[in-house]
């Protein structure tokens, strides 16, 4: 969004004179929504951000959480929605590049990537082009830099046909003693390393801070182009320089370019900076100072180095053939002074530049929301086998192998539980010990948010929590990405405020600090300006003492028992079942149940730790029926389950038990000889469980007492589950 008249007069007040062109550009970049969070800061304060494990909370380019005493996990989420809508390949690729550099700013080695994609219908030609472009962009960039994409989620909805949401997250690890977190001082040198600065991504952050018009293709110059080889060299060189302790402080040159990095760095440390733009290595001649200041050329890092370490740092960068420039030094006067061709082109107080005033917009509950049907009338269903096939073949349920097989998810030799095998990815941390590890996962459900943004956002936190529990980890922290519409429109802003509150509430209940995150506004359909479905995505990290104990969700042994943990309620509102079978997106969505999440999560963790559980799957989209089908397909084993054994409340129909998306539930394969002990433990902890049946044979049979409801062969389930997405996308 360009600066408003109000903001312009404020700038004149700050400077006491008319701003220069360079100064105006700096203010426009830094005061953009993307860089300044001016429309979201007020509400983001609601999020719980600290506990004893949090080493660095929100505010830096990335947060850090303590893990296994000596180590820090650095992880963060980022959106690249606007660029991906214009140029899906480069937009998604540079999203990966940016999030990886954020992680590197603390000196951490990036070890895993996640992608959370909200895509249009594969049958829509334009959406199909976007889908292929986004996935290929992530694939080409992630694979080339050697950081495995190990987890994430994908959701398909026609709301994203012209405008996808592309959220990416990265996890890194560093020894606490090597965290790049010194206090920069006046006299330290400012070094820019990596790519040369060119005209790409000019005002990218301002571009992302307004709605895209139907002339969006003219914005192509605001999209950056990635160079993964350069990024890989940066990773290698900076890892080495961090190891040698050569860098005091780092910032990614991301949204807002040099202007933003300089003002944030100086403002955060009560410093100023003197910058000579002529020293910066440029890709093209005759760039104006304002272009240089706000260019978002990729693969550039700003390194703060003590003057007596410059030669050592230079030697490391040269070894990797990386260009670098010493562009100036930090000063103590709090002013950012920028010189170009002998002229002082900008002279602004860093503090005022870095933090524009908070904007609070009007809020209004949309009429569309008020008129949503809350009462569900679901027709009687006789053929539940057919209903199961419909749900299981939903693109939101089926295997996402078409996507993740394009990612090198094994590079780094850490990936213990790989994509498609468990509820979360599990990675070993060899630097900690032979079998220490982490679990990572990302979740979000735009249909839930559409029907109830507060509860929908809260449920994303709950689902992420369960997924981390399912593989045997202890959840430690989350980051969130709030994808919303135009904050200036009261009905769009309402969704944003509700989502933040939902995350804040649930995170506090589950005692999960929200250590960082991102807000993305102005996500609107290109053709008509309506907001694309807003969604909150949550990425969480859990710790595992012994990765040999982590579990996947494939059924393992004939004769083992399948139990359900948690209570099933008639919660079909917003479910995949009523959407797939009746085209309904209505009703009240499943209630978040934080105290059950904690209780049931504790129980499942114990089952895994004691070795009673051989497979665990959380119950979410598609309900018990979809979850058990996935367990069968992955293990190529059959099972007969009896729905009358499900602890249920108020369910009057079979389909309610089969497809309800009630929260806080898991399916667990319990070793045959451990069932008694598992049930005893449930009684001790006061957890409700039901023994549904035994693993055997080659078909999935679902019954209620003596009544047969569903019989489907595993081969047929597998065919549906494994091949549907490729058919939908490749035709």
């Amino acid at each position, binding site marked *: 969004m360009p600066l408003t008249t109000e903001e312009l007069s404020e700038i004149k007040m700050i400077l006491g004179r008319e701003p220069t062109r360079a100064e105006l550009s700096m203010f426009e970049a830094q005061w953009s929504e993307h860089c300044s969070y001016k429309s979201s800061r007020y509400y983001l304060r609601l999020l719980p951000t600290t506990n004893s494990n949090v080493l660095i909370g929100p505010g830096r380019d990335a947060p850090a959480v303590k893990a296994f005493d000596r180590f820090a996990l650095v992880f963060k989420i980022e959106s690249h929605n606007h660029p991906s809508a214009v140029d899906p390949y480069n937009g998604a690729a540079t999203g990966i590049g940016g999030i990886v550099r954020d992680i590197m700013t603390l000196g951490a080695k990036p070890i895993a990537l996640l992608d959370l994609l909200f895509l249009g219908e594969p049958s829509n030609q334009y959406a199909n082009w976007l889908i292929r472009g986004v996935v290929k962009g992530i694939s080409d960039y992630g694979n080339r830099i050697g950081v495995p994409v190990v987890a994430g989620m994908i959701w398909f909805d026609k709301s994203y046909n012209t405008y996808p949401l592309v959220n990416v997250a990265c996890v890194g690890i560093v020894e606490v003693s090597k965290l790049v977190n010194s206090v920069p001082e006046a006299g330290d040198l400012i070094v820019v390393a990596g790519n040369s600065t060119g005209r790409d991504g000019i005002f990218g952050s301002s571009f992302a801070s307004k709605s895209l018009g139907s002339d969006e293709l003219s914005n192509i110059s605001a999209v950056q182009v990635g160079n993964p*080889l350069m990024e890989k060299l940066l990773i290698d060189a900076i890892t080495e320089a961090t190891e040698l302790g050569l860098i005091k402080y780092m910032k990614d040159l991301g949204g807002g370019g040099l202007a933003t990095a300089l003002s944030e760095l100086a403002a955060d440390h009560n410093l100023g900076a003197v910058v000579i733009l002529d020293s910066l290595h440029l890709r093209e001649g005759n760039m104006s100072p304002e272009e240089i200041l706000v260019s978002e050329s990729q693969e550039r890092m700003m390194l703060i180095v003590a003057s007596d370490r410059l030669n050592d740092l230079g030697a490391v960068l040269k070894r990797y053939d990386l260009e670098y420039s010493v562009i100036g030094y930090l000063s103590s006067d709090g002013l950012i002074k920028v010189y170009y061709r002998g002229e002082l082109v900008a002279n602004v107080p860093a503090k005022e530049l870095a933090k524009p005033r908070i904007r609070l917009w009007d809020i209004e509950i949309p009429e569309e929301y008020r008129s949503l049907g809350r009462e569900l009338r679901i027709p009687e269903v006789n053929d539940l086998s057919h209903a199961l096939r419909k749900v299981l073949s939903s693109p939101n349920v089926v295997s996402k192998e078409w996507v993740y*097989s394009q990612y090198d998810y*094994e590079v780094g*030799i850490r990936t*213990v539980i790989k994509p498609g095998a468990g509820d979360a990815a599990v990675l070993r941390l060899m630097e900690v010990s032979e079998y220490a590890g982490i679990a990572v996962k990302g979740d979000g459900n735009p249909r839930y948010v559409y029907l109830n943004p507060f509860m929908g956002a809260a449920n994303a936190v709950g689902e992420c929590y369960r997924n981390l529990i399912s593989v045997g980890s202890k959840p430690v922290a989350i980051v969130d990405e709030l994808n919303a519409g135009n904050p200036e429109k009261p009905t769009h802003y309402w969704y944003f405020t509700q989502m933040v509150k939902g995350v804040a509430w649930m995170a506090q209940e589950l005692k999960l600090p929200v250590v960082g995150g991102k807000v993305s506004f102005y996500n609107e359909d290109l053709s008509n300006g309506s907001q694309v479905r807003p969604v909150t995505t949550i990425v969480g990290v859990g710790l595992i003492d012994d*990765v*040999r104990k982590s579990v996947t969700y494939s059924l393992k042994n004939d004769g083992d028992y399948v139990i359900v943990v948690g209570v099933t309620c008639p919660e079909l509102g917003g479910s995949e079942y009523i959407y797939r079978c009746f085209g309904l997106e209505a009703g009240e969505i499943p209630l978040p149940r934080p105290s059950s999440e904690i209780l049931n999560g504790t129980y499942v963790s114990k089952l895994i730790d004691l070795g009673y559980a051989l497979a665990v799957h959380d119950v979410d989209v598609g309900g018990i029926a979809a979850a058990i089908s996935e367990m069968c397909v992955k293990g190529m084993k059959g099972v007969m389950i009896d729905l009358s054994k499900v602890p249920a409340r108020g369910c009057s129909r079979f389909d309610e038990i089969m497809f309800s998306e009630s929260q806080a539930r898991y399916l667990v394969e319990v070793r045959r000889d451990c069932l008694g002990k598992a049930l005893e433990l449930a009684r001790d902890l006061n957890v409700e469980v039901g023994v549904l049946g035994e693993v055997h044979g080659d078909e999935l049979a679902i019954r209620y007492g003596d009544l047969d409801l569903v019989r489907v062969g595993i081969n047929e389930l597998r065919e549906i589950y494994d091949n549907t997405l490729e058919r939908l996308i490749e035709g």
Partner: protein
Amino acid sequence: MIRFPGSNADLDVVWVIRKVAGVNASLVWHKEFRHGIYDAIVLPGGFSYGDWLRAGAIAARSEVMDEVGEDVLNGVPVLGICNGFQILVESGILPGALLPNTSGRFICGWVKLRLLNPRGPWLKLAQHGLVVDMPIAHGEGRYYVDEEPINRPMIKYFDTNPNGSSYDIAGVASESGLVLGLMPHPERAAEQILVPDDRTPGGLIIWRSIASALKEGW
């Protein structure tokens, strides 16, 4: 272990050589590599020079490959994994060419492989026809060759051919087996903890072979 700009599986292989094979390994930046120093050479996976032009094309023409060629003449075993295989083929040390997968997409996943005519340091301990599991991860892994190189040690895809390779070839060696190149990643199939439920660590045969070969000859 030679590191090119863009190599990304280099540290993985060093880890496995040290931990699994029990052999010392150093990571050598391509500009600093000289012949006549090392007992064996590995060219790792990754995207040397960003795969510009063609996968492996630029690395194959860089000075370090003259040094590697010198070592090969002197009987030093060389293993090229994935991008390393592409480099060996591009430089003419191994026959054939590697083209984009028939699907047009990058493919990551586990495959079954059969080892044929095993001999030389890298396959010393294998029996003819042995079937092993390893993962692949490549966009340009379709091996193309006019005539099947029947007298050489070969590694073939066993049940499915994931990329359209001629004669199902996943890897091929020089006639003596001294130089071996393969698309699958033996370093990712060398430790039980990284192996999926229904697979076995099929890369071990290569690491155990080279460890034995370096100690006792082949």
